[in-house]
């Protein structure tokens, strides 16, 4: 009897990444991890978002990796930072670079056809590779 090869089911992988997993990483480690995941065609959901500085670097590194043949960039959406949290004593104490809790969805631009956001909902329509 012929051996049956294990197969990978068609579909889109969604990685929900906890704040704890990201907390000890440097900015570039976070960006590298996100982009490697997204370039594999996966959707990344960060429990805690990136700092403004990290978002700026994410855009910059994404641009250097765009390739007409296989990578058109990223779609990214996140809930706004909580105004209350931003103006809180602890937030001021740790500086404006604290990301706070900011659920963030990042995916490959060519697979996310529609990404809608309002204050309470992020809706993504994702196609297979």
């Amino acid at each position: 009897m012929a051996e049956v090869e294990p197969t990978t089911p068609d579909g889109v992988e969604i990685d929900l990444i906890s704040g704890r997993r990201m907390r000890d990483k440097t900015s570039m480690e976070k960006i590298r991890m996100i982009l490697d995941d997204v370039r594999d065609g996966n959707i990344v959901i960060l429990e805690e978002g990136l700092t403004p500085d990290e978002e700026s670097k994410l855009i910059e590194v994404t641009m250097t990796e765009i390739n007409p043949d296989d990578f058109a960039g990223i779609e990214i959406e996140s809930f706004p930072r909580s105004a209350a949290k931003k103006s809180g004593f602890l937030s001021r104490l740790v500086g404006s670079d604290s990301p706070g809790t900011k659920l963030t969805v990042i995916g490959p631009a060519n697979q996310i056809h529609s990404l809608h956001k309002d204050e309470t909902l992020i809706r993504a329509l994702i196609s297979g590779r």
Partner: protein
Amino acid sequence: MGLLGSLKDSISRVTASLFENGAEPKRIGIYGPPNAGKTTLANRIARDWTGDAIGPESKIPHETRRARRKENVEIKRNGKSVEIDIVDTPGVTTKVDYTEFLEHDLDKDEAVRRSREATEGVAEAMHWLREDVDGVIYVLDSAEDPFTQVNTMLIGIIESRDLPVLIFANKIDLDEAQINRIENAFPQHETVPLSALEGDNMDEVYDKIAEYFA
């Protein structure tokens, strides 16, 4: 204070006046999404105060693919003057798909070349924002939805760096323009309506530039 101390003070003052020469012109970056009219605005300001333009304008996205600086633009308002360097930057985005350029009658090679240059330009614009600008004019198309992630992220990045920012609601000459949408999107910042193409409301634009960046 002894003779030596006085001499030291005098030398310090002369050295300071030689090298500081008053305040250096502030570098004001013109940022925003592609096709918001950034270069049209930069050209309007540069032409009004220096007589020269900064760069070519186009309806094709990513026409500006390199940051361009116009130095020593002196804007005179109410008896005072403010000298700034205007930095016109490429439109910021998180994606560039070369096939979008094919819709503008470019052949594939030209579209691929343009998309490569566009990605380099966006990376350059982000670098300028982190390192080299002292203030920001954020330009939005009044006829487009301002509630986009790129706008939210960029305003967040600008705020985190404590840079003074003015929001310019451009293209008010269009029938679909909705200035209040932009005011509602970023209520923490002052929004100035204008049409850089038609030259509408430029007096208020220059008043605000002088007020914010002097």
